[in-house]
């Protein structure tokens, strides 16, 4: 009995999630002590609402990284599809609900994702090169063909969706209120679906397999090309959904506003223990890592750290986070070589 407990502990200590969780808790407590504001209901709701869009992006980035790929094009992809959607709906003077915006954006996202998937999956080009390229292409289309400018008015359906809330939290001390946006539901639904996909379908396990060894996956009879292609389509759709949520919540469509987010999102995913080399990592860890980044981005101001310092903190977090996982890998290897030697001698 005792040994099973220590066994479990040992196994846990080799994973990243407990460390990230610990750091996260420490940070929260620190902010709480310094400001007394962190655990107030409205701040928590604010964080949740700030988390929805990066959370969605992170889910997509997570899938790609697990499969051994990388995607730096998702902010551009999301910008393009949501911008095109909004503009189109404005042009036709659409007065209906948000669902049409979501559908169009999902369809566009699928097409743009298929563009990535075609080159990476079928033509076997390196994912980083392809997505760097497609990122430029997407931006180019947006600025060139669509002649993008900030759209300060968005269709009424999107506007209403953006202002509707699940509930409102009020801070009894300061009297400040915060709305929990309905958009959080989109995040939760995608989170649940992808969790199921990654854990309970051969498709998801196949992504892990491909990330671990593409050759082995191929020899096992797995459709590596198709799987990658479909994955990039899905990721395009998730990113576009995130784009729609973002525009609804901001109440305006800004063509460049999301660009540049890719670094922090990928950092969060890696921080949560997802191996950048592919094949290893959990959605839970990925969410914790992303949450950590979001809190640093949004709450340091509560303890009086100027916003200009944000990037320093984010950078430090990334170094520490990757350091911990590198240390774990080396420790695992050491344990292993000792075991091997022991077996040799016996």
């Amino acid at each position: 009995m005792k040994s099973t407990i220590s066994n479990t502990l040992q196994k846990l200590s080799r994973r990243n999630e407990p460390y990230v969780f610990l750091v996260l808790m420490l940070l929260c407590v620190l902010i709480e002590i310094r400001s007394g504001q962190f655990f107030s209901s409205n701040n928590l709701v604010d964080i949740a609402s700030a988390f929805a869009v990066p959370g969605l992006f992170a889910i997509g980035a997570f899938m790609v990284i697990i499969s051994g790929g990388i995607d730096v094009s998702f902010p551009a992809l999301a910008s393009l599809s949501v911008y095109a959607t909004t503009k189109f709906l404005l042009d036709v003077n659409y007065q209906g609900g948000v669902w049409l915006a979501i559908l169009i954006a999902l369809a566009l996202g699928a097409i743009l994702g298929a563009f990535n998937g075609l080159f990476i999956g079928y033509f076997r080009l390196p994912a980083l090169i392809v997505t760097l390229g497609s990122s430029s292409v997407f931006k180019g289309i947006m600025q060139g063909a669509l002649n993008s400018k900030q759209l300060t008015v968005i269709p009424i359906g999107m506007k209403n969706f953006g202002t509707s809330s699940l509930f409102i939290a009020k801070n009894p001390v300061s009297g400040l209120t915060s709305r929990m946006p309905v958009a959080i539901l989109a995040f939760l639904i995608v989170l649940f679906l992808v969790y199921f996909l990654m854990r309970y379908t051969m498709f998801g396990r196949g992504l892990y397999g491909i990330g671990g060894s593409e050759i082995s996956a191929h020899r096992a009879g797995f459709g590596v090309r198709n799987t990658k292609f479909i994955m990039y389509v899905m990721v395009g759709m998730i990113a576009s959904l995130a784009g729609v949520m973002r525009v609804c919540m901001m109440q305006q469509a800004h063509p460049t506003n999301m660009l540049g987010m890719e670094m922090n999102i990928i950092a969060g995913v890696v921080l949560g223990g997802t191996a950048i080399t592919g094949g290893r990592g959990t959605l839970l860890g990925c969410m914790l890592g992303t949450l950590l980044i979001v809190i640093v981005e949004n709450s340091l101001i509560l303890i009086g750290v100027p916003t200009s310092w944000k990037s320093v903190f984010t950078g430090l977090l990334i170094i520490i986070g990757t350091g911990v996982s590198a240390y774990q890998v080396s420790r695992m290897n050491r344990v292993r070589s000792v075991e091997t030697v022991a077996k040799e001698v016996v």
Partner: protein
Amino acid sequence: MAEGLLRAVDIYKSFVGVQALKKVSFEINPGEIHCLAGENGSGKSTLIKVISGVYSPDSGYMEFGGKRYEKITPIDAIQSGIQVIYQDFSIFPNLTVMENLAFNSELADRRKIVNWKRMRKIATDAIAKINFKVDLDAMVGTLTVAEKQMIAISRALMFNTKLIIMDEPTTALTKREVRNLFNIILKLKERGIAILFVSHKLNEVFEISEKFTILRSGELVATGSTADLDSEKFSFFMTGREFQKKTFVPLNVSKEPIFQAKGIGMKSAFHDVSFDLRRGEIIGITGLLDSGRTELALSLFGIRPIDHGAVLVNGEEVKIINPQVAMQHKIGYVPEDRLSEGLFLTQSIADNIVISEIDSLANKIGILDHKRRSEEIERWVRELAISTPNPDNACQTLSGGNQQRVVLAKWLALNLDILILNGPTVGVDIGSKHDIHGILQKLAEEGLALLIISDDLPEVLENCSRILVMKSGSIVADLDAAKSDEKTILSYMM
């Protein structure tokens, strides 16, 4: 089915510019252990891939279970009961043992949804078949090579397997693990499963296989029952060359020892080791894996410095505290695992040869003298007969034997007095092994002092003038090679 599990007839297969298989026929019966041998590049892997449907032959046909196939697809092959275990085992290092075991059969059943309970059951059943004990939740990347191989075998057995093909299954295994593998192969045989395994190690071929097939440059040179084979024939079939064994006779042995070890020791590795080494001599040091022989070699070269006794070079005491000091005193070391220790595999052959003498090739102001560099490279490629179309090719394009020659060249370019070789022909094919032995003997005749650490007894007997046998960290016998034999050495080793 009374006879003939698989027959491949008159198979031809070519790649751009290479005729990999020329009219090769091959036959295996149920429950037969068959060894496929041949030097590197002789077409063994290609034959395996034709049989398992990865490549389709240019001409020829196959019969499996009485059915004739002009060409077979990988799916056909699996459904006919052929399973291939590749050298890399086709595992997923990032997944658990359980998933690695269950993945293929889940795919074969075209499952879309994962049921973890069912996976666990599949995995448990799979390892039970060969009595393999392993934590199903362990990450496969953390297991030993042998354990990974067991996983690959268990996985292969989950299908209605009639033939298991293993490509060089013993290369990365220790002796004990090879033993274990052979036991499993024998058990599979009892169940009527045929095993085709690729190996070019003589002792393994004799020990386990009943039938053999030898390829050379894509052609079938011999096939038959192992009982009719002996080591001379085997070497001849493999290489097409007759080897006379050339036993080393020391000719120009110097009067004064060039190197002396006086009671040297290193904590918990070896102790009280003394010997003299003269120019023109080849001393062999042998012993079991844990006898301290490798540690001794590492100490002599300064990688793990001694903490007792003294080392004399040319009669003067020298403290060899690191490899630089060893090299200053013209001592060189060719490591056992040349792949990981001795070479920069992705760099060119040329650069690998000149890397350790790079300083002496530079002129006064430190600029590399290109003419001298290419002279040096040319000289060593010629002298050691390194077979490459172009010395600027990456080292990894060479076969094992040729890589070993590059390591030798790298050290010889330094004009050494003393050369220590640890397992000089481990993993090297017969032809190259013979050539390397010739080179070593020639070097000794030219006045080099050599120290060979090896557990290949025929090798030390043939190439050394004296043999030191180590056991539990000390020298237990100092034998005249000409007057001893394997039995004597073994009796001291054990």
